[in-house]
C-alpha cells in the first residue's frame, strides 16, 4: 500500500498538473484567448510571456476562476486541474482558489497586521486547530517567503507599512499559507525594484520544490532566469510552448523569434 502511494506520488511529479484543452475566452464580443492548449507540469516554473494585451494574465486568472466575477466573460474548452475540469458545474470556485493561490501584480496586503495577513487564509479554511498551530503556519509561510527574519519582531505591525518588495513577499506568504498545489503569479515583480525582484525570483525557484508555479511576466530575462518551461502568447494565440532553453535559443515560430529579439511587442 505504501509503495503504491509512493508510486502514485512519483508518477504525479512527472505528470501534468494543469491541462488546458482548446480554451477560448471571450470578453463580450472580443475574443481574448483563441484555442489555447497548454500543459503545466508539477514542480516546475512555467512562464507566460508575450506583449501587453496578449491574454496571458487573462489566462492565468481563468485558472483559479477569478474572472467569474466579471459577468461579460465567457469561456469554452476545458481547464483540468489534476484531471478534473475546474469549470464543471459542481466545482465551487472558493474551494478551487484554496488550491490555486494567486499573487497579484501590485502588492495588495490587507490593511491589517502582518500576522493577520498570513493567518487569514488558514483561518477561513480551518487549517489550524489552535493558536500554536496557527503560529506555526504563519512562521513557516513567512520563512518560505523569505521574509521571516525581517518581520519576526513586528508581526503586529500593519502589512501596508512594509516596503514594496516586503509587501509582495508577504502576499506570497499569504498565498502559500493555505498550502495550495499551484501558485499563480501575475507579474509579481513589475512593481518592484531590481533587488526586491532578485529576492522574489530566488524565492520562486525555492517554491518550485513544493508547488507548481505559473508566472506571467513582461521581462524575458526573468522568464529565462526562473522558468523551466515558457509559453509565448501573441494576440490571444499560444504561439509556442516548450522548454525555456529551447524557446530562447532556438524558437520554432518566427513570431517568437521576433519577440524575444525585440522586433515586435
Amino acid at each position, binding site marked *: 500500500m505504501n509503495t503504491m502511494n509512493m508510486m502514485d506520488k512519483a508518477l504525479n511529479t512527472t505528470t501534468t498538473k494543469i491541462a488546458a484543452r482548446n480554451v477560448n475566452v471571450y470578453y463580450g464580443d472580443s475574443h481574448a484567448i483563441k484555442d489555447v492548449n497548454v500543459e503545466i507540469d508539477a514542480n516546475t516554473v512555467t512562464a507566460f510571456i508575450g506583449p501587453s494585451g496578449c491574454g496571458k494574465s487573462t489566462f492565468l486568472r481563468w485558472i483559479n476562476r477569478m474572472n467569474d466575477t466579471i*459577468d461579460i466573460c465567457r469561456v469554452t474548452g476545458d481547464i483540468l486541474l489534476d484531471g478534473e475540469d475546474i469549470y464543471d458545474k459542481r466545482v465551487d470556485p472558493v*474551494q478551487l*482558489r*484554496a488550491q490555486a*493561490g494567486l*499573487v497579484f501584480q501590485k502588492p*495588495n496586503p490587507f490593511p491589517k497586521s502582518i500576522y493577520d495577513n498570513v493567518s487569514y*487564509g488558514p483561518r477561513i479554511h480551518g487549517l489550524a486547530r489552535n493558536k500554536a498551530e496557527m503560529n506555526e503556519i504563519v512562521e513557516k509561510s513567512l520563512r518560505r517567503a523569505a521574509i521571516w527574519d525581517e518581520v519576526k519582531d513586528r508581526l503586529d505591525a500593519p502589512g501596508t507599512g512594509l516596503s514594496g518588495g516586503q509587501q509582495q513577499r508577504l*502576499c506570497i506568504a499569504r498565498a502559500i499559507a493555505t498550502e495550495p498545489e499551484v501558485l499563480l503569479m501575475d507579474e509579481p515583480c513589475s512593481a518592484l525594484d531590481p533587488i526586491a525582484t532578485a529576492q522574489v525570483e530566488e524565492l520562486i525557484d525555492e517554491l518550485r520544490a513544493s508547488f507548481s508555479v505559473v508566472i506571467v511576466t513582461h521581462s524575458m530575462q526573468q522568464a529565462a532566469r526562473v522558468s523551466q518551461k515558457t509559453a509565448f502568447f501573441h494576440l490571444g494565440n499560444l504561439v509556442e510552448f516548450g522548454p525555456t532553453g529551447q524557446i530562447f535559443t532556438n524558437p520554432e515560430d518566427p513570431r517568437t523569434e521576433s519577440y524575444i529579439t525585440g522586433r515586435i511587442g
Partner: protein
Amino acid sequence: MTDLSSSPTQPAAPENSLLTLNKRTKARNAAERRFKAYGIAAISVGLIMLLVLVTTIVSRGTGAFQQTFVTLNVELLESKLDKSGQRNIEDIKKVTTFGYAPIVKSAMKETVNGLGLQTGLKSKELAGLLSKSAVAQLRAFVLANPEQIGKTVEFRFLAQSRVDGYLKGRVTRESIENDKNISPEQLDLVDALVAAGVIEKSFNLDFILGSDASDQRPEAAGMGVSMMGSLFMMLVVLALALPIGVAASIYLEEFAPKNWMTDVIEVNIANLAAVPSIVYGILGLAVFINYRHLPMSAPLVGGLVLTLMTLPTIIISTRASLKAVPPSIRDAALGVGASKMQSVFHHVLPLAAPGNLTGTIIGLAQALGETAPLLLIGMVGFIASNAPETLSEGLLSPNSAMPAQIYEWAKRADPAFYERAWGGIIILLLFLVTMNTVAVILRRRFERRW
C-alpha cells in the same frame, strides 16, 4: 566683454523671451486671479450669512434659557388645605388648584406688606404677577409632602410671561397700553420687588427638561418631552435604517448582477433622496396610520416615516464608501480562497465602516431636523405633558419632536413663545452640530490609508 549690462549695443531681448510675459499668459493669469477672487467672494458671502444666522439665533434664543422667578414664603394653611386635620391624602386631593389660589394671593400680599411697599393693587392683581402654573406647583408640593401643611415654606414660582418679558426688555410700558394681562401699576411693583430681591432672573433648567405648556403659560413651556419624542424616533430610525440601508447597499454594490433592473433601482434610489419630505409624510399617513392603524402622533410612526426618508441617504453614502475600497482588497481576499461574503464582511465592510457611519450620522441628523412629514402624522401641535417612562410608552404614546415643537411655538400668538422657538433652535442646532462633529471625528479616526 563679460559685463553684458554695460554694453549699449546689447541686442534686444528675443521675441519669445521667458523674461517677459506674452499676451496669452497675461490673459490666463488674469483669468486665474479673477476666478480666485470670485471664489473668495463666494466664501465670504457664505461666512457672513452664517455669522448673521448664528448671531441672530444666539441673541434671540439665549433669553429662553433664563426665566424670571418670584420667591415667596407661603403659609400652607391647614384650614384651607386639610379641613379635617387628619392628613388623609384623599381629603387633601379633594382641594383643587382653585382652592390654592387664596393661599398664593395672601402669600403675595404678605410679602409686599412685609417689605413695606405701598401699592393700590388688589390681591388678585398681585397674584397676577405669578404664572398660572404657581397654584399647580403648590398643589403638587402639598400632595407630595402632606406633613408640611400648617408650616411656612419658601417657594420659587415662575413669574407671569409679561413680567418675564419686562425684565428681558421684550415688554415695555408703551407696549402694554392695550394689554389686559398687566398694568403699569403692576410693573411699578415689579420694579420695587426686583430691587428687594424677591423677583430675579436665573437659569431655567425646565426649559431644557420640561414639557410644553398651554397658550396661557409660555413661561412654563420646555423642550424636554419633545426631546424624548425625537430620541425615540431616532432609536427607530437607527434600528431600522442602518441595518436595512447597509444590507441593501452591500447587496447592490457587491452581489447584484449589473443589468437594467439594478440600474433602474439605482436611479430610483438617487431620485428618492431628492423627494420632498412631505411626500414621505403623506405616505406614512396613508400606510401606517390609515391602513395599518398605528397610533397617531406616535414616535414609532414618526420614526418609520423618517426611516423611509433616511434610507436613500444611507444607501447612497454606504455604496460610495464601499466603492471607495480598492478592488485589489477584494481580489486579495478571493485569491486566498475567501468566499464573496467573507471578502465583503472580513475586509470590505470594515474598510467602508467609517464612511458608512458618517453617512448614517448625517442621515440621522437630517431626520432629527425634519418637520414636514411630522405635520401629516399628527406630531405637530400635540402637547404631551409628561415624559414617557417606558420604551413602549415612548414609542406608542403621542408625543412631539424638537423641530415640530419649535414650529408649534413659532406659530403661537404670544411673543413670549417666539423667544422659546429661538431657544429651541439653539438646542436643536447643538444636537446637530454634536452629531456632525462625531461623524467627522469618526471618519478621521478610523479612516485607513492604503
